[in-house]
């Protein structure tokens, strides 16, 4: 049983923002509820008000306009996984969405919830960080747009204010020749919390060299981390098995430095090599081929 609270179901964004501005006492925004409802049941949260976004249909859309992808905060994991335009260069988002929970969680859970929840193991966060996404935060009479990396403050912490609602994530469309991947290591395939995850984006140049590489790791730090050393190492070179090993080593060294002497470090330092190897080969099969 859940502790009682006041429930609001505003029918417009204006109404929602005005509720957020005026309701007294602790309040929580309800999107998919897959994290909020169990937290309410366990009594970890006891808000006086719950503001449901259920009726804000415009937040359920994915739009591509003027070279940018806009993903509404209420877009579910299933929607992301099934969104056809994400089968190409942006497939890391679809892959990450498919790795979340099981089908039931994917039907309900939302990208907005995944972001605001700010779990170090949040599956969509490394892809969004690699995509250099920004988030839009609205409040009555104003809004602000922040890079996701800046928005995330660490384990369960973000810089969202009490009266704000995160309405969308936005990122620039990747070039058509780009390839991407997401690999997650959990204790099992389904319903598992990420132990390590990695998102990779590779943009090849005309001659087959890597023009740009972006790598982001999940669950090795309080928030996703980019791997500038490995990214720099890949840039301007041609993917092959020896470059793969160099990059994997750079990733593993970054992880070792990030984890310090945490209890999980001995395991993750080794395991991340497999994750990185798999992610890079998925993004560029040439990494796996002996020439």
């Amino acid at each position, binding site marked *: 049983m859940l502790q009682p609270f006041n429930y609001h179901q505003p029918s417009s964004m204006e109404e929602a923002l005005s509720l957020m501005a005026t309701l007294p006492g602790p309040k929580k925004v309800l999107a998919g*509820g897959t994290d909020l409802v169990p937290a309410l049941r366990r009594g970890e949260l006891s808000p006086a008000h719950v503001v449901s976004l259920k009726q804000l249909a415009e937040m359920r859309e994915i739009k591509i306009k003027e070279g940018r992808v806009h993903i509404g905060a209420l877009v579910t994991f299933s929607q992301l996984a099934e969104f056809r335009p994400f089968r190409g260069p942006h497939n890391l988002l679809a892959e990450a969405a498919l790795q979340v929970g099981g089908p039931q969680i994917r039907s309900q859970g939302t990208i907005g919830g995944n972001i605001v929840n700010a779990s170090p193991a949040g599956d969509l966060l490394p892809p969004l960080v690699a995509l250099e996404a920004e988030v839009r935060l609205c409040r009555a009479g104003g809004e602000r747009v922040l890079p996701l990396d800046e928005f995330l403050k660490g384990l369960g912490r973000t810089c969202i204010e009490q009266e704000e609602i995160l309405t969308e994530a936005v990122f620039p469309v990747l070039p058509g020749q780009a390839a991407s991947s997401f690999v997650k290591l959990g204790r099992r395939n389904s319903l598992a919390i990420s132990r390590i995850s990695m998102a990779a984006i590779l943009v090849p140049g005309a001659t087959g060299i890597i023009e740009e590489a972006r790598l982001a790791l999940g669950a090795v730090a309080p928030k996703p981390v980019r791997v500038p050393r490995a990214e720099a190492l890949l840039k301007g070179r041609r993917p092959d098995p020896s470059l793969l090993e160099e990059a994997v080593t750079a990733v593993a060294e970054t992880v070792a430095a990030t984890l310090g002497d945490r209890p999980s470090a001995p395991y993750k330092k080794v395991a991340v090599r497999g994750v990185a190897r798999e992610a890079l080969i998925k993004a560029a099969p040439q990494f796996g081929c002996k020439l």
Partner: protein
Amino acid sequence: MKPFRFTATINGRPVDLPVNPHRRLLDVIRDDLGLTGTKEGCGEGECGACTVLLNGRPVNACLVLAPEAAGCEITTIEGVAPEGGLHPIQEAFLEAGAVQCGYCTPGMILAAKALLDKDLSPTDQAIKTAVSGNLCRCTGYIKIIEAVRLAAAKLSGEGDAV
């Protein structure tokens, strides 16, 4: 805390009742509507025993606040079988020996239904993915997967081909 007017279609029938908004869809289904075929195994969205279909998609009824499901088409295990008979998925679960203690069975059947309503020739991987949010602690997964395969054949008119 004021009650919320919960209107929805459950198993094809309209329902309209006041519910306290802090109650979960699972509580409304089991306690208010007496549809106890939907089970609570964990209350955390880990086990899938409370799976119902919300507008055709599988969800854990323990993770959905009742008012969030207002206006939706909800299917519970009680709405799967035709009057006086069994749905081919239910037949298949019996024939394949996929029912043991029976506690995961309603959720498994609904997870399978969500798949088969969209895809009548699923791969084994698709079947495994479809039931990956449902735990069976008697560990009858092999037979459950066989049952879904058999149900797909029955539904596509190849019932005897498996």
